[in-house]
């Protein structure tokens, strides 16, 4: 079984010279290798020797198959005898359990029976089959090569270059329409502007999720957190798509605890602040608010945002702080947005800052 190591001089690494004929890269002198001792003597099993054991194992196999029958029948009976009483979760549990156990026994009985049969009763000798080298014989390869050559000659494939080249061109281009027609998986509009706008606008009231009831500033006491949607969201045609951008978290902090950066002084109302609830990492709702530490935790990848510092990132894989929704109060005391968010909400995308 000697093989080239495939090392043509000058193109690959060669192995160290050795007196041993080239056998790849083995180096141990072949003649000093221990030899394969051949098969060990056959050890008969107890069923081979003792007819009583044979009968016993045979009975066991049959019992297992019988158990399978019992199981399958039990499953059918259970299906009928443990019906589902609509609304009664316990009945669902019983139906699932007993139907399942019956089927389990039906299957395991066959499985264990078949395996036990093969292990203890079927002929236990190891048999041998020869391997042949996977590659075809030289004659077969030659015939295959000859067939291709004939095909080539009779068609003139390589000789008629014009035919060949235009055929290849045609075959390459013909699937392209099939690729192109998948364009309309997406609507015609440009996705980027959509990502930059939400339902929030000047005067839109902050309302409770999911009821849509507006929120008064006086409702928001210290330590509270409100889950907020814009007024009108529930009537929107694309309710979930809009909610995926417009969901907001509303909390109240002591004005003294709040660090407001220049330009954002009127974005909060007496310590009530509103931030986008959509994580700037990959978009999960950032909803775990700790009222004493003022930390906001996202449960997906553990990004943390500091609500006293404009929701900037203090831990975790996010980078950008949560966008802040500028809010104020209308003349009835309800919280309203001053405008839409001043930056796109949610996860980053390539065109975000353009």
């Amino acid at each position: 079984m000697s093989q080239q190591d495939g090392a043509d001089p000058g193109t690959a690494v060669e192995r160290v010279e050795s007196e041993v004929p080239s056998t790849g890269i083995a180096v141990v002198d072949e003649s000093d290798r221990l030899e394969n001792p051949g098969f060990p003597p056959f050890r008969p099993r107890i069923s081979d020797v003792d007819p009583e054991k044979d009968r016993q194992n045979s009975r066991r196999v049959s019992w297992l198959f019988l158990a399978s029958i019992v199981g399958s029948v039990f499953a059918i009976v259970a299906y009928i005898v443990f019906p589902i009483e609509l609304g009664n979760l316990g009945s669902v549990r019983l139906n699932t359990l007993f139907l399942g156990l019956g089927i389990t026994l039906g299957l395991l009985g066959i499985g264990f029976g078949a395996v036990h049969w093969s292990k203890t009763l079927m002929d236990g000798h190891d048999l041998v089959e020869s391997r042949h080298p996977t590659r075809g014989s030289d004659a077969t390869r030659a015939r295959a090569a000859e067939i291709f050559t004939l095909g080539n000659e009779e068609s003139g494939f390589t000789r008629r270059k014009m035919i060949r080249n235009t055929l290849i061109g045609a075959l390459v281009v013909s699937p392209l329409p099939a690729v192109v027609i998948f364009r309309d998986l997406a609507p015609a509009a440009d996705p980027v502007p959509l990502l930059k706008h939400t339902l929030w606008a000047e005067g839109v009231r902050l309302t409770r999720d999911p009821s849509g009831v507006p929120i008064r500033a006086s409702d928001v006491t210290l330590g509270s957190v409100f889950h907020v949607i814009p007024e009108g969201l529930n009537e929107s045609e694309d309710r979930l798509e809009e909610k995926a951008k417009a969901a907001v978290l509303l909390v109240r902090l002591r004005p003294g605890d709040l660090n407001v950066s220049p330009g954002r002084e009127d974005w909060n109302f007496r310590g009530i602040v509103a931030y986008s609830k959509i994580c700037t990492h990959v978009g999960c709702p950032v909803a775990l608010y700790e009222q004493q530490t003022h930390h906001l935790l996202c449960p997906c990848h553990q990004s943390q945002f500091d609500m006293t510092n404009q929701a900037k990132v203090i831990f975790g894989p996010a980078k950008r702080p949560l966008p802040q929704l500028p809010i104020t109060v209308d003349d009835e005391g309800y919280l309203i947005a001053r405008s839409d968010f001043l930056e796109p909400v949610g996860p980053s995308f390539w065109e975000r800052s353009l």
Partner: protein
Amino acid sequence: MTVEIHHPVKETTDTVPPGPGMRLTNWAANYVEDRTSLSGFVKELGRKIFPDHWSFMLGEVALYSFIVILLSGTFLTFFFQASMAEVTYEGSYPALKGLDMSAAMASTLDISFDIRGGLLMRQIHHWAALLFVASIGLHMLRIFFTGAFRKPREINWIVGFLMFVLAMLEGFTGYSLPDDLLSGNGLRIIDGLIKGIPIVGTWTSYLIFGGEFPGNDAVGRFYSVHILLGPAILVALIGVHLILLIVNKHTQFAGPGRTENNVVGVPILPVFAAKAGGFFFLVFGVITLVAATVTINPIWNYGPYDPSPISAGTQPDWYIGFADGALRLIPSGWEFVIWGYTLSLNILVPVIVLGLFLVVVAIYPFVEAWITGDKREHHIADRPRNAPTRTAIGAAGVTFYAGLWAAASSDLIATHFKLTIEGVTLGIQIATVLGPFAAYFIAKRICIGLQKKDREIALHGYESGRIVRLPGGEYVEVHEQLSEYDRWKLVSFDDYTPLMIRPDKRGRITVTQRVRAALSRWFYEDRIAPVSKGEIEAAHGEHH
């Protein structure tokens, strides 16, 4: 090497006169055979030999779980509605009655609560899916650690790798079908990930979801992939995989009588058919037992997907865990705006690292073949200890994967072991980066240590526990020599040396050659040679 192999048994073909029941079978067999040449198949394959080792059955576990998935999935397709159209749930689960949700979610609830056997089938399907990917993983590890990917099986490795990726895709699309809160948040994460891809991200997200997330199309499209494209390609690949297995024949572990030129084991009919067939029922039975007694994916607790709520402990199914973990491990702030374009390295680095990891897995056979220069066919499976560097690389790879996987459950680790999530994250960051190196080193030394122990036993036998007092007063523990059959297993591995560089025709040594030689040196420098005949004779001379 030429060895006289004494066949343990002669194949006998005693003809049995047909009894009454056999006549119908004979007629049927003849009818079919006249029209299909089936006897040719039977002749070729009926007594094909399969080696018998438990680790060779892991691929079967994968195959059988796949069949269970197909069967249970077919049942589900009769009841599931892959539509995101909004309906009001009027089924029987009390805590969701009257709620608006997609038809997909509502039909999944109906399957679970209003159809007998529905919940069982859902649970069988999902448990079988988890087992499918797990068994593929374990199977691939077995192939890796025994070197069964070497020539002539490299193509089959690639086919298997493709199935591995496809299985994960099938699982992901599958658990996203009910449109529940857990899988919906998973989709949200994937959408965020896609949006973060430079240049094409926003458009790709738009294309997949048919517009803005979540849209009305995702479930329907995933359904097409999940019940049509995915299974069809998987079935085709399984076919190729099995055909190649038959053509190449299965590998076998070294043993007395087993050579590179034979296969020793049991014939398909009757033993292998009984064992493999029985095993199918056993795998199916275990899956059903688990599905009958343990809850999986209780979508009724999660409720329908909505972008606002989320559950503590939101993780994907285990086989996507390494991706979720990778996202969690990135430190803060890895995002930059360059000339107005946002480059989200906190997303791209995980994507690239995971992509590279998968590529390394896929191309490993070719890299190892290049390093070793070994172009022979290999049909004897390596014991992992006899390929220390490969085993150590595998250990490092597993450790890296495990670090990423563990990271996905960082919040649960924190609550259960009373740690901080910050501490757990830091700990896993360190473990994932440094762990693979430690694992490599430890695994390699253990392999070499085990090889040394094998040498010791081959040369000097094993300690029998009998202490003998020699006439001179010396106490000695008697060593039992191994039988030549047992010893063969310890000495029958190939010995390699690193490749040597030679200058080419023009007297130069290319960079590629230097790299190849360096890698070869790394691969084979530390090695233990198998015990040779001379050493055995010398050892025997020393002892009695």
